[in-house]
């Protein structure tokens, strides 16, 4: 025999058509016996006047809040009794609201903002060497760019270039020593010219050969030479042409004194040593040749 309490528990399922046969018969029997329960069902089914039916439904399914909430959480379609219950039951209405909020907010928890280096760290860890070197290369380029953006970078660059240029061309050990003759603005630019000044080409060749050998050994004037280089560089840095020239002169003088130091017994010059016009117009290099020639003669 079905009691009203049990009928209330099963009312929802019954109205949703979810009660199987033996129980269904029992429920229908109960509806025939119990007028109150029959009127509840009738008022729900009538769907016309909810004011009576809904409070009743709230009560009848009230003890099944858990069941209603589970059904709501499952997310299926709502039965009439579920709707009625939620309308009347405050905790269940709140449950519905909270559930809706969960649905809305939960997807927002899907992502956690990764820090800026995350992806590049992953890529560094995964990609093969060529990629790594590409990344490193790019990083160096960035560093260089930042370095060049500093205010004094251009001047420092000019200084470095100057020092390199002077070292390459204007010292006795430079790989391109002939360039120093252009630097010192001498009209005599080749060894042929210098040889002709001495008047005796064979002798001049010997002198020059000697100079080249000794020149690499004589380093006592390197300090002065370095000073000349520094002055030239500073002149470039400050845009002071006078200092540039002075430095270049010092470098030239250094070379000149190296050359004038070459006084060997083998060098014997007879007769007039040089073309007078060359002496009048000469720069440092020419003077050097003449010093060598006249020094031995006297």
């Amino acid at each position, binding site marked *: 025999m079905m009691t009203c309490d049990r009928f209330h528990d099963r009312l929802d399922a019954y109205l949703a058509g979810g009660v199987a046969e033996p129980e269904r018969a029992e429920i229908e029997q109960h509806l025939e016996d119990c007028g109150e329960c029959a009127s509840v069902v009738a008022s729900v089914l009538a769907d016309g006047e909810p004011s009576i039916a809904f409070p009743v439904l709230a009560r009848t399914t009230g003890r099944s809040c858990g069941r209603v909430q589970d059904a709501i959480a499952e997310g299926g379609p709502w039965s009439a009794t579920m709707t009625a219950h939620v309308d009347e039951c405050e905790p269940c209405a709140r449950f519905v609201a909270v559930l809706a909020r969960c649905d809305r907010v939960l*997807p927002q928890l899907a992502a*956690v903002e990764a820090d800026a280096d995350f992806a590049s760290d992953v890529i560094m860890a995964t990609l093969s060497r060529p990629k790594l070197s590409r990344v490193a290369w790019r990083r160096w380029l960035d560093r260089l760019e930042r370095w060049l953006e500093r205010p004094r970078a251009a001047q420092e660059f000019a200084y470095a270039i100057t020092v390199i240029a002077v070292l390459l061309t204007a010292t006795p050990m430079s790989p391109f020593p002939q360039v120093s003759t252009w630097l010192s603005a001498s009209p005599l630019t080749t060894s042929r010219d210098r040889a002709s000044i001495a008047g005796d080409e064979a002798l001049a060749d010997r002198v020059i050969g000697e100079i080249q050998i000794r020149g690499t050994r004589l380093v006592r004037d390197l300090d002065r030479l370095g000073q000349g280089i520094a002055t030239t560089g500073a002149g470039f840095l400050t845009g002071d042409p006078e200092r540039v020239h002075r430095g270049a002169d010092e470098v030239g003088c250094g070379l000149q004194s190296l050359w004038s130091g070459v006084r060997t017994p083998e060098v014997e010059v007879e007769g007039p040593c040089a073309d007078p016009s060359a002496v009048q117009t000469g720069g440092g290099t020419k003077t050097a040749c003449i010093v060598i020639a006249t020094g031995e003669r006297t």
Partner: protein
Amino acid sequence: MQNHDQDTQEIARLVRRCREGDELAWEELVRRFQNRVLGLVSHYVRSREDARDVAQEVFIRVFRSLPNFENEERFVPWLLRIARTTAIDHTRRRAARPPAQDVPAEDMHALADPNPDPAERTERASERGMLRRALDRCSSLHREILVLREVQGMALNEVADLLGIPSGTAKSRAARARAELAREVMALEDEEVRRLEGPQPGGAS
């Protein structure tokens, strides 16, 4: 739905390019999914630094497995599966070999502290903070299915597949988990209200 399909197609193209050795595609893939992987991992691994390490390991594993991965349309579930496995591996390693100094690292889901200033209180009152805390209070079984299904938006059959359970079980577990979460949120709200109504001497810490 159209949009979703387009997304899937685009990701599949990206994955295909990765498999062909396109490094830019790989970079894009990492950037595209880094937040999501980190998000999933951080539900398993509490400390932020550990979560970052684990997420990186996820991508390294993905990169190594890409040559053998052929079903490009199913990339996202595959990625999430690797993320989950890696995170669980990590927590197991951690459990087997706890750190020498057991200082709980900064919690990503910042929990309530006894004496918060108003700004923090506002922060905690925010919906996300509330939900994070509610998630933390759910049972781990329910939390996991919530994270996969509701947070990451995986389909029910994908979740069932991933967890190795029948889809019916997954469905009912997801429903129970949703209910539990909603109840935890309500409980947290009630606690909040009680705390705001009046400080009880010698009350909750």
